[in-house]
């Protein structure tokens, strides 16, 4: 975890495209929010591996959003139940239920449906706001940090050692 965080900081401070970082984080959110063994997560894994998104951000995203998912499960369940029981959507769900892909996706589970809807809905906002945050970070934080006493103290810690050792590695 410490290593992943250090990697992320190193990526933040490198010249990696902000969208690569935030896409990794957003895909991590989808996988973290929704139950792991579902069809859409295979697709997410494929996209993460094939597209040049940042893997550290992706792993960190899974860790962070899995934690949130425990607390948000009741919300996912309520939203999923609401959508799956919506009268207007019964035809769609029944078609999906009778298809092999639908069964593999396990969409008819309230938590799967609720968490997928929320993560899809948050995907673009997370990417957009993430990009802005990365840019702002790069503009202001590194300069301020350099002269900060706490940071100076941190520089003598193990965390900084890891960060330094990783900084020699080219970011993916």
């Amino acid at each position, binding site marked *: 975890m410490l290593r992943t965080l250090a990697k992320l900081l190193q990526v933040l401070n490198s010249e990696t495209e902000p969208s690569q970082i935030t896409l990794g984080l957003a895909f991590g959110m989808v996988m973290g929010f929704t139950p792991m063994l579902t069809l859409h997560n295979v697709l997410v894994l494929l996209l993460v591996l*094939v597209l*040049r998104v940042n893997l550290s951000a992706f792993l960190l995203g899974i860790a962070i959003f899995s934690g949130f998912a425990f607390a948000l499960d*009741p919300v996912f*369940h309520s939203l999923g139940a609401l959508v799956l029981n919506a009268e207007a959507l019964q035809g769609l*769900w029944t078609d999906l239920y009778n298809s092999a892909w639908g*069964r593999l996706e396990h969409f*008819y589970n309230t938590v799967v449906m609720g968490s997928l809807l929320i993560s899809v809905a948050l995907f673009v906002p997370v990417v957009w706001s993430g990009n802005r945050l990365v840019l702002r970070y790069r503009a202001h934080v590194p300069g301020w940090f350099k002269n900060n006493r706490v940071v100076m103290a941190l520089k003598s810690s193990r965390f900084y050692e890891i960060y330094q050792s990783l900084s020699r590695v080219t970011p993916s």
Partner: protein
Amino acid sequence: MSKYIRWWGFIAFVVIFGGASASVFLLADWAVKRAVESWGTSMNGARVDLDSAQMTFNPFGFALNNLQVADARAPMQNSLQVQSIKFALDGFALLRRKFVITEMSMEGVRTNTPRSVSGAIPNPPPEPEPESGSAESSFSMPSMSMPSTSELLASEDIQSGRLAESFKDDLDKAREQWSQRFSQIPGEKRLAEYESRLTKAKPSLDGKTLQDVQEIARAIKELEQIRDDARADLEQVQSVKRAFGEDLGSWADRTKMVLASPQEDFNRLKAKYSLDAKGLANVSNGLFGPQVADWLKTGEYWYLKAKPFIPASGKPTETVERKRLKGIDVRFEDRNQVPGFLIRNIKVSVDVTAGKMVGQIRNVTNDQATLGHPMTFSFFGEEMHGLKDLEIEGTFNHVNPKATSDQVRMKARGIAIDDYKIIGGKTFPLRLRNSAVDLDARLEIKDAEQLDSEIGVAFKTASFVSVNGEKSELGQVVADALADVQQFNANARLGGTLRKYTLDLHSDLDERLRNALNRQFRARIDHALADAKAQLEQRAQEAMKRIQAKLDELKSYEQKIEERRKQFAEKLDKAESDLRAAVEKQKSEAERKSNEAKQKLKSETEEKKQEAADKAKEKAGKLFKGLK
């Protein structure tokens, strides 16, 4: 392009999923073999072995080679061996976690084949056991000798003697019990105690008011205590009396049973040795009953073994409700509803001793209610030796779980019987030779329990041979009667429940045998039965005398208990009457005291009045004197 695409990532993805898929395919054969063997062994109660399993892709399914199902009752034998099983799986159903086999073929099915290693397992599940009292016990070959009266009474199950003996033993035990119990109820000593306490409780009055009142109060308290004690003892005696009354009732019932038992024994003997359709002349029961019972026992064993696989309740699949935080699976309309386990069609080829049987089984499932169709099967014989035509078809209908019906119909033509041993032994060895038989059977089990079946067998040609042996006289008569039989029909009707069935067997032979036996034995049987009846009654009378003596002895306790009850009742009455007298005395004493007090008060008032009048008079005299 490479700015956005990470090619090594794509290759990694392919490697990960390709590797996972390859592992599944490589391990599938092993996993299926293990699953068949472990699941089969646990269900069968003996080893199930499979040589190999291979996954097939077109169609998607498996091929199983040399399946051996060991016989739990004979572990060195396979109850079933199948050379090859091939089946095609419904992939879409599998994605829905349903195991649906669309087509299955079973080649080289054989039964009762030898095994090279024992099929026994360390802790087998209990075998299904038929309940006691099944029809098996009702089959007994008529004794092929005519016993004398004494032999008859010695060899037959005579209940009257047993009943009388057991009643006598029970009366002996009862006498000991009642002797002990009677000694435990309150007796003479207790009665004497009451007498003494009642005497002491009587109040001794000396005319002194205060002491008398205290004495009466003491007597009342003491008498109340005596009354309560006497009441408790009386209740104890009365409860013993009630228990004795119940025993008396049961002894009376058993006396009636003992008295009636000689007649019942006689009726049984008469039925057995009479020359009617239910007795000795029912040769069908005697000749074929044991064999039919044996078949039924085997059939029952396999039906009970197969019962767990036949849908019993047919409960529809319930909605899976997962634990909280894992959500709930919402069920939508399933347009192609199938049960969790289904084999749509099995083509079977069975090698039997007589040749080969081919057939098919449809809709094998544990949930017919969901499928909406019953399981059906049909088989017919091919290249059969010693059998012209064989057809077996059946339906296991559990679509409506509340009204199930399992039916099997069998039709066999021209079954050749070269030499069949009907009865062994020395007294009446009988064989059936060179016979051709037609068989029509309809077996039905309703609601998984009720039997309703009929079997008709036509022996188109028949030849009974009573081979060399030391035949009894009766055996000789039966052998002679059957010697010229060339054809006959036999019918069986099966009823009752699966575990307690009744079998009624009749044939054309019954009438023939009855006539033969009548000619030879009628007078002797009647005489033997009459003699047996007389002896039974005489034995019962003797037994009853001994029983009556024991009963009389026991009845003396009734008198003793009643006497004891009266004594305690008297003591209770005495205590109550003394108590009433004491209370009356207390009341009258209290009234006397009250009257005395009133009288005293009255006289005191009178005195005071007189004194006041005298004073007033004196005062008035003084006043007049002054005025003057």
